[in-house]
């Protein structure tokens, strides 16, 4: 993290539609080179928040700066500098991939080679295919191509993998990771836990228009009361006594005493203690497995409901 001004800065953001408050006071910063995720269920206010930042919607209240621009006041200048992949969008049925890229590149004050970007996104072979003939994954890659056509330093990806099958989702993930390695700043919304854990440097969990938790995935997991599970397997049965028990830990042996399952509050320390104990008792360690609490657990704990219902 640098001392420079954040790429995105949001303070007290509120968006109301009549009586309905879609966003109820959100604050966060996104820094240069960071992949920042907004994680939350459908209708949590993620898309509304992102679309306000993109200059698509007017906010009701709050201060927002994106790349130093106020999206309400300078939407044109802002849109010229960012890349956007929208959630629900389409192109004309009979536009070809290459035509779409060339069309959109004409809208920006600077743009990169359409050929280069299509090759990079493995769409070059499909350049003359009509939009209507593309698969879901190809459409999403084209959306990414359009989002990158102006070589933006800040990219908004709204639910980039929703509705795609697992294989294609992985493809998109690796593309996003590639973008991250270019040192671009990415704001991503998702309701997939794995996606947030895998791709994001920092995550804000959003529910009912509020951020209920924010931090790196690890920090969030660490904050939970949920416990990690340690599973240890040995060649020989473990001794019946002197097993180290830290405060809050719970131990359970299998019937043959070769497998030990521990739920731990501070798993790192517990593992060190356990490994020492097994070593001293002369047993041979066969396998050790640590299962941490997921962001799902964090979410359930914070809201009392599951992410996807």
């Amino acid at each position, binding site marked *: 993290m640098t001392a420079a001004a954040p790429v995105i800065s949001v303070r007290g953001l509120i968006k109301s539609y009549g009586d309905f408050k879609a966003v109820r006071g959100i604050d966060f910063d996104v820094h240069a080179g960071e992949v920042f995720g907004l994680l939350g269920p459908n209708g949590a206010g993620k898309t509304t928040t992102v679309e306000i930042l*993109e*200059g*698509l919607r007017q906010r009701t209240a709050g201060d927002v700066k994106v790349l130093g621009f106020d999206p309400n006041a300078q*939407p*044109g*200048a802002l*849109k*010229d500098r960012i890349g*956007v992949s*929208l959630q*629900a*969008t*389409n*192109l*004309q049925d*009979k*536009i070809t991939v290459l*035509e779409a890229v*060339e*069309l*959109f590149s*004409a*809208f*920006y*004050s600077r743009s990169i080679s359409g050929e280069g970007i299509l090759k990079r996104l493995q769409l070059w072979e499909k350049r003359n295919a009509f939009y209507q003939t593309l698969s879901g994954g190809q459409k999403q890659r084209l959306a990414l191509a*359009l989002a990158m056509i102006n070589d933006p330093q800040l990219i908004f990806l709204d639910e980039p993998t929703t509705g795609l099958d697992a294989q294609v989702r992985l493809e998109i993930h690796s593309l996003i990771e590639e973008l991250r390695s270019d040192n671009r700043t990415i704001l991503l919304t998702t309701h997939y836990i794995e996606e947030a854990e895998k791709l994001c440097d920092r995550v804000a969990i959003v529910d009912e228009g509020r951020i209920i938790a924010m931090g790196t995935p690890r920090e969030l997991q660490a904050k939970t009361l949920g416990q990690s599970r340690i599973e240890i397997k040995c060649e020989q049965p473990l001794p019946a006594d002197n097993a180290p028990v830290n405060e809050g830990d719970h131990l359970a042996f299998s019937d043959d005493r070769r497998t030990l399952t521990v739920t731990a509050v501070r798993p790192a320390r517990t593992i060190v203690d356990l490994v020492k104990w097994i070593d001293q008792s002369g047993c041979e360690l066969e396998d050790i497995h640590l299962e941490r609490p997921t962001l799902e657990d964090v979410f359930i704990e914070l809201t009392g409901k599951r992410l996807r219902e």
Partner: protein
Amino acid sequence: MRPYLANIRINLKLTMRDRMVLFFNFAFPLVFFFIFGQIFGRGDASGITQVISMVLILGVLGTGLFGAGLRAVQEREQNILRRFKVAPISAAPLLVASLVTGWVTYLPSALLFILLGHFQYGMPIPAQPFSLFAILSLGVIAFRAVGLVIASVVNSMQESQVLVQLLYLPMLFLSGATFPLGLLPNWLQIAAQFLPATYLNTGITAILVRNESLAENAWPATALALTTAVSMFISTKLFRWEKEEKISASAKLWLLAVFAPFAVLGVWQAQSKETINKSKALTRDIQRIRTTFIRNARVFDDSGSARAASLLIRNGKIEEIYATEPAKSVYEKAAVIEGAGKTVLPALADHLVELTDPAAPAGPWKRDDVRRALAAYLFSGITSVAVLEDGDKFAAEARQGERLLPEITVTGATAGFVRVTSAEELAKRVADARVIDISGVREAIPAAVLRDVSKSGVALLPALVSVEASEQAVKGAPELLERGLIQQVMARPRLEALRRLVQSRKLKPAVEQANLGVASVNLRLASAEGVRLVMGTGSGRPLVPHGPAIHRELQLWTAAGVPAPVALRAATGGLVLRKGGAATLLVVDGNPLADISATERVSAVFLKGERVPRSTLFEEYDEDAK
């Protein structure tokens, strides 16, 4: 500039790939073209010109309303515009691209129809191609812009469909594109003045048929340009990128703003009737470019005799006179009149007409009465009348072609027209007159006076029928009224009133102590002395009916001893039938050179190539009587 060009380019490509566009631009008008071409074209230039302007307008309306109106809504509904919203462009490049695309895709279809009309049905190539191009361009861009406004005030495809149809159908049927405006009831004609398509139609037809320029159609052109400007302003203001952004129902009222220029034009037109009259005149012009072939008739030519010949009439002119019957291919696309037993003459001219009521010369005489009387001339084969006074307004009507009327020239003292009542007066006025009406002269004119007249070149107008009518008025004998053609031509109530008036001997004669015998002798002597003679009837004078009186005049001349060719030459006002001349003709049954009364048996009358619809000529005026 780049976003504009890129959008135009892609829009054009997408349009070319869209089957609906091909359908509305080409297939749909093409079907209309062939169906109506078969019905009305008949290879004849007038019908096909109407069909062409119809399909041109069909294309403009389709490209504009369906092309822009539906497509823009579709792109919003399918979340396509959303993607454009996150790009740094305004609505303007999208809207402009739609206008340009409509324009570029429309023009080839317009060209196709004009060429098809030319090669398939013999329509003349437009003489003002630039003006036609300009008015079509203005039209298609204006309607495209209207389509965009429709797109911006509706919330769904369904609403858009309804609104498009609501505009499309009336504009198709009331603009004159499908039916001539003149056929519609009066209130609909006025309602049509509020539709942009009416102006477009009038403009296109005027340029196609009349070879008018764009400048002569400045009003419609300006209104179309204004519509474009207003529409673009409104659709920019109301442009929506996302289907979730709904617009209030009252926003549809913006459409009214689009039509504001036409509301102003419409109110003005409802007063002035300029466009209504112009479209009637255009219908007239279209009639005049019809092709007619008169086969194997007796043709009265400039030699004063009659010979067998066939005539081809096209574009208002006598295109050719064939001494022997030409190949069928020459006239296969024309309306054919079988000429056997018929004689073709130049149409007649009556050189002395007073626009008054022959039953009550001093009484009230409404404008429509005058128009009916003028129509009676056409019915009787007279296409040109010289009126003493009060003819100006009708002369203008006739010239502009808004009504089918004979050509009217206004004579009078300033034109050198003089009426005398004695031989002495005649001798005096020879010096300063050009035409002298001698119907009032009750004495024999000395030969010396006639010689002077002959030398001076002044023309005498005997109006024998005025003299005869005066005799009958005095006698209370309405014989003149019993003649067949008069019975046909005069409105029944007026005929009855006139008959009663004569029988009661209350009708004051035009010529006191009239003496047809003396007048006839004067005419014969004048003819013998070589005096220039013109034929006029003095119709409108007591008991001299408008129209058929000239046939009686012809009979009185031959009875007086004037040879038939001389009398006919005087009655046709010097018109001759020649190739390239105006096709203003009278076709009669029989041979007037052998029996002058044959002129009464009118078979057909042509005015500048338009066949006068004799059977329906009085309908407009006799509606009350029916």
